[in-house]
């Protein structure tokens, strides 16, 4: 993909120095898809909650842009804020089940429609099963899996985003994979005998 004419760093400088809101809206436009997709995964498909948290993420980013030291990529920094927003929300509302609202129903409808096409049947079914399996993980385990596999971050980058040691990320992934193996046992190759 071609590099944008104006880099993220230049846009950030404009926001910080001149409070240029047009520059900030360009940053939001560039990164909204990745941030919202991440939060949709973390919230196990709750689109409304994911978008609320995404908005909160960008507003926090705007307020704290001066503290962004560019020692990480801007996208990684945003993902860190988004993950913290998700954890903070979960701490506040642990009693609310996630992914149980009208948007999830809409998503299921999309999945059903998506699943009708033969070409996409497998990936759509996998997506549904994976989302359910991920929803059964703890928040920390789910976040570790989403960052390391779906966002393709290294363990070190995931540790930065999650704000925990690398060893903890590895432990979360190990435990998550153990649980996913049990939840997704139906997807295991039939040639292997599993207990």
């Amino acid at each position, binding site marked *: 993909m071609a590099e944008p004419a104006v880099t993220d760093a230049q846009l950030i400088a404009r926001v910080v120095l001149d*409070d240029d*809101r047009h520059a*900030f*809206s360009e940053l*939001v*436009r560039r990164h*909204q*898809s990745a941030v*919202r*997709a991440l939060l*949709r*995964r973390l919230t196990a498909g709750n689109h409304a909650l994911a*978008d609320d948290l*995404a*908005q909160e993420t*960008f*507003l926090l980013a*705007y307020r704290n842009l001066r503290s962004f030291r560019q020692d990480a990529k801007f996208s990684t920094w945003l993902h860190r804020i988004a993950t913290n927003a998700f954890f903070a929300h979960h701490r506040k509302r642990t009693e609310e089940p996630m992914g149980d609202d009208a948007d999830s129903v809409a998503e299921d409808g999309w999945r059903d429609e998506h699943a009708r096409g033969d070409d996409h049947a497998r*990936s759509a079914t*996998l*997506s549904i099963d*994976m989302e359910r399996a991920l929803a059964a993980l703890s928040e920390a385990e789910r976040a570790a*899996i989403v960052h*390391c*596999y*779906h966002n*393709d971050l*290294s*363990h070190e980058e995931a540790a930065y985003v999650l704000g925990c040691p690398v060893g903890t990320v*590895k432990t979360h*992934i*190990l435990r998550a*994979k153990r649980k*996913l*193996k049990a939840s*997704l046992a139906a*997807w*295991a*190759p039939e040639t*292997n005998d*599993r207990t």
Partner: protein
Amino acid sequence: MSDPHHDPDSSRDDDWIEALLREDAREHAQRVVADDGFTARVVTAIPAPVTLPPWRTPLLVGMWAAAGLGLATMLPDALRDTAQDVLRFIVAQHFSLRDVGVVVLAFAGASWAGTLYALRQER
């Protein structure tokens, strides 16, 4: 390309879940979340910039000027009185050269200790 998340110590039994996670990640990576007015909503939610009223600066300058003028008129007398009191107090004491030396050394020691402590905190 080797997979950085694959644990080489885990058994081959894990390979299928690794493959499944990668397949699902690939599928998700291809999806783009349409903006659908999201950017506009975020920009609208940004609080308006704090603009100072135009009369604020002249007012502040005037207040500081008045305060400065007041201090400049009052301070010479107050400063002279205080200095005389302090001098009288010091002259009334009987300090030996040794006492002065001890105070200077104590002060230097405290300064060095403070500096070293601050440097240690920064590391």
